[in-house]
C-alpha cells in the first residue's frame, strides 16, 4: 500500500498535465471544459487524502528523485500545508465552475478566452507547489508559476483598463520576486543550503546581525506578495479591473500564499520574537488603513479589495503574537478568509451581471429583484464582518484570546484596533447592503436601466433580451443571454455553504489548526520529517 504522501507531487503535476491537454484541446470547448474540471476534481480528491494522512501522521516529506535531504528537492506535507491545499483547490474548483458557466452563458467561445482554462490550471499548480515546497528555491518557483499565470489572467482580453492595472501588478510582482531571489542568494551564501528544514537548523547558528538582515529581506519580499500595509498599495489598484472570477480567485489565493510563506518564515526559519513588535505595528496599520480605504469606495469590487488587504492584518496579528492559541487561530482564519473573500467577489460578479454595474451609487432594489442574490451576499458579508456565529467571529475570538494571553500593552492596543476594524468592516458591508439591496432603484443617483426595466408580462426579468430595446442600453445586441445562469448561482451558493460549514465543523477544524500550530511551534516534527531524526534539538 502506497502512502498518500508519496503522491504529493501529483498535486502539482496533475494540474500542469491537465493544462497541457486543455491547451491542445483549445478548439474543442466542450472537451476542454471536461478535462479542466475533472483534473481539478481529481486534484481535490488527492489533496483530501493528503489532509487525512497529515491529520493522523503529522508532517511527512517526500524526496523527489530519491536524493538525500539537504541536496535534493523535497516536498513537505504537514497539517497547515495540507489544509491550505484542500481549501485552495476547493475554492478554485468553485471559481472554475462559475467561470465556465459565465463563458457558456455569454457564448464567447472565441478569442483569448480559450487560454483561460489552461492558465487557470497552471495557477492552481503554482499555488500547490508553493504550499508543498520544502526548500526556498522551490517556493520561489511556485511563486513564479502562479504569478506568471496571474499576469495572463489579469490582462485577459487586453482592454485599456486591464493593461493599465496589469502594468502596476506585473512590475510590483517582479520586484518582489527579485527581492526574494536576492534573499535566497544571500541565504545560500551564508548557510550553503536552501532546504527549509536544513535552514531551520543552520540559520540559528549565524550571528545576530546576519540573521536580522536575512529575516527582514524575506519579510519585505513576502510582505509585498501578502499585501501588508506599506507594501499593499498595488492590490486595490490592480484586482478590481479583472473579470469577476479572476478577481475572486486572486483575492482568495494569491495573498494567502504570501501569508503562508510568512508563517513558515516566522515559525520554521526564524523562530523567536525578534521582530514581533514590528509585526504587531505593521498588522495594526494594515488593518486600519485598509478598512478606512474600504469605506471611501463606491465600487463594490474596490471596497472588497480594500477589506482584503485590511483582513490580512488579522493574520499578521496572529503571527506576531507568537503563542499557540494565536497561531492556531491564524491557521483557521486563513482558511476562513480564503473562502469568504472569494464568495463575496463571486457574488459581486453576479450583482454586476444582474444590475449592470458594481457601483453602489447606481444600484438599488436588488433585494426585491433577486432575493437569492441578497441571501448570497448577506451571509458572507456578515461572515466577513465577524457577526457570531459565523466563522469570522470564531477566528477572531481565537486571535483575541491569544492577544489577551500575551497581555502586553501593544497587544491590548492591537486588540482595540482589531475590534475597531471589525466594526468598520460591518459599516462598509452594511453600506453596500443598504444601497444596493435595500433602497429603491429610483432613489439612486443614476440607476442602471437594467434595474428599472420590468418584464412586459409583469414577470421576472431573467435575460438581457428584456432590455434589448432600451434606447441607451449596452446590452442591445446581446440577444437572449441569461442574467443569472443557474450554474453560476449554484457554484457561488456552494462556496457560501462551505463558509457556513466552517462554523458547523469548527470543533474538528480548530483541533486541526491547533495541531498544525503546535507542530509549527515545536519545529522538530517538520525538520525530522525531512532530515530524519536529529540528535541535538535545535
Amino acid at each position, binding site marked *: 500500500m502506497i502512502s498518500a504522501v508519496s503522491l504529493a507531487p501529483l498535486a502539482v503535476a496533475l494540474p500542469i498535465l491537465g493544462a497541457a491537454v486543455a491547451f491542445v484541446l483549445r478548439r474543442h470547448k466542450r472537451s476542454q471544459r471536461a478535462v479542466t474540471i475533472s483534473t481539478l476534481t481529481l486534484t481535490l480528491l488527492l489533496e483530501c487524502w493528503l489532509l487525512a494522512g497529515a491529520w493522523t501522521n503529522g508532517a511527512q516529506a517526500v524526496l523527489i528523485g530519491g536524493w538525500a535531504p539537504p541536496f535534493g528537492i523535497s516536498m513537505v506535507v504537514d497539517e497547515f500545508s495540507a489544509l491550505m491545499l484542500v481549501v485552495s483547490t476547493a475554492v478554485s474548483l468553485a471559481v472554475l465552475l462559475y467561470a465556465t458557466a459565465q463563458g457558456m452563458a455569454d457564448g464567447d467561445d472565441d478569442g483569448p478566452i480559450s487560454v483561460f482554462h489552461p492558465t487557470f490550471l497552471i495557477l492552481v499548480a503554482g499555488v500547490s507547489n508553493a504550499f508543498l515546497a520544502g526548500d526556498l528555491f522551490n517556493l520561489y*518557483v511556485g511563486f513564479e508559476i502562479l504569478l506568471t499565470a496571474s499576469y*495572463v489572467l489579469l490582462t485577459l482580453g487586453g482592454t485599456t483598463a486591464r493593461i493599465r492595472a496589469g502594468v502596476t501588478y506585473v512590475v510590483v510582482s*517582479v520586484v518582489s520576486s527579485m527581492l526574494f531571489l536576492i534573499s535566497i542568494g544571500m541565504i545560500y551564501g551564508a548557510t550553503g543550503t536552501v532546504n527549509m528544514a536544513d535552514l531551520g537548523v543552520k540559520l540559528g547558528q549565524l550571528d545576530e546581525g546576519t540573521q536580522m538582515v536575512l529575516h527582514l529581506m524575506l519579510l519585505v519580499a513576502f510582505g509585498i506578495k501578502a499585501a501588508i500595509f506599506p507594501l499593499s498599495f498595488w492590490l486595490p489598484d490592480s484586482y478590481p479591473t479583472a473579470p469577476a472570477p479572476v478577481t475572486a480567485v486572486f483575492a482568495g489565493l494569491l495573498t494567502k500564499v504570501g501569508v503562508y510563506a510568512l508563517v513558515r518564515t516566522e515559525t520554521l526559519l526564524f523562530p523567536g520574537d525578534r521582530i514581533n513588535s514590528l509585526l504587531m505595528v505593521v498588522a495594526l496599520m494594515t488593518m486600519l488603513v485598509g478598512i478606512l480605504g474600504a469605506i471611501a469606495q463606491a465600487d463594490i469590487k474596490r471596497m472588497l479589495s480594500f477589506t482584503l488587504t485590511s483582513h490580512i492584518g488579522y493574520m499578521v496579528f496572529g503571527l506576531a503574537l507568537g503563542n499557540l492559541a494565536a497561531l492556531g487561530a491564524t491557521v483557521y482564519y486563513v482558511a476562513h478568509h480564503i473562502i469568504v473573500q472569494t464568495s463575496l467577489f463571486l457574488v459581486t460578479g453576479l450583482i454586476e451581471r444582474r444590475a449592470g454595474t458594481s457601483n453602489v451609487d447606481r444600484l438599488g432594489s436588488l433585494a426585491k429583484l433577486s432575493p437569492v442574490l441578497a441571501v448570497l451576499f448577506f451571509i458572507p458579508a456578515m461572515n466577513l464582518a465577524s457577526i457570531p456565529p459565523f466563522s469570522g467571529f470564531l477566528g477572531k475570538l481565537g486571535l483575541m484570546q491569544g492577544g489577551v494571553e500575551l497581555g502586553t500593552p501593544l497587544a491590548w492596543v492591537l486588540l482595540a484596533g482589531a475590534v475597531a476594524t471589525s466594526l468598520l468592516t460591518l459599516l462598509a458591508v452594511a453600506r453596500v447592503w443598504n444601497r444596493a439591496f435595500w433602497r429603491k432603484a429610483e432613489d439612486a443617483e443614476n440607476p442602471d436601466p437594467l434595474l428599472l426595466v420590468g418584464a412586459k408580462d409583469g414577470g421576472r426579468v431573467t435575460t438581457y433580451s428584456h432590455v434589448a430595446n432600451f434606447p441607451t442600453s449596452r446590452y442591445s445586441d446581446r440577444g437572449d443571454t441569461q442574467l443569472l445562469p443557474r450554474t453560476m448561482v449554484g457554484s457561488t451558493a456552494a462556496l457560501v455553504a462551505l463558509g457556513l460549514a466552517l462554523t458547523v465543523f469548527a470543533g474538528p477544524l480548530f483541533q486541526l489548526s491547533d495541531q498544525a500550530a503546535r507542530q509549527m511551534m515545536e519545529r522538530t516534527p517538520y525538520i525530522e520529517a525531512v532530515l530524519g531524526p536529529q540528535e541535538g534539538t535545535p
Partner: protein
Amino acid sequence: MSVNVVMLLVMGVLFACGVYLLLERSLTRVLLGLVLISNGVNLLLLTAGGLPGMAPLYDSAIEPGAYSDPLPQALILTAIVITFAVTAFLLAMIYRSWVIARRDEVVDDVEDRRVAEQSHFDFEEDSEIEADTTEFTSEDDDAAARAKAAVAAERRQASAEESAGTSDESRNREAR
C-alpha cells in the same frame, strides 16, 4: 567566504542602474531596469557559490573542495528562464499599451482620482432628514413633499457640479 571584487562592482552598478530605470514612468525603461536587476541577481547567486573551481563532473582523483558549486548554476539557469518569460510578457503588454493608447507610460488610476476628489459629505448618510419621520404627519404631508423635492434638487445640482468638475479635469489631461 572569499569573493571577487570585480563581480561585486559589476553587481552594484547593475542594481543601481536597474533601480534608477525602474523609477521612471516610461514602461520601456522600467522593463530595462527589471532586466538589469535580474542580471544583477544572477551574478549575486553566482557569487554566493564561492570562487570558481573545476567543472563539477565527478572524478575520484579530484578533491571535493576543488569543484565549483553546481547548485547556484542550476538556480541561475532557472532564474534566467523565468526572467525570459516575464520579459517576453512585459514586452507584449507594453506593445499592447502602445497599440491601444499610443503611450508608453504608467497611467494614473481614474477611480483613485475620483475617490480622492469626492467630498466627504454624503447625501444618503450625512444630510439632515428634513422631512418629519414620525408616523403622525397627517397635516404635514405637503411640507414633507416639499422638503424631499428640495433635497432632490440639491443633489441634482451637486452631481451636475461634480460631473462638470470631472470633465474639466479630463480636458486638462487631454491638453497636457
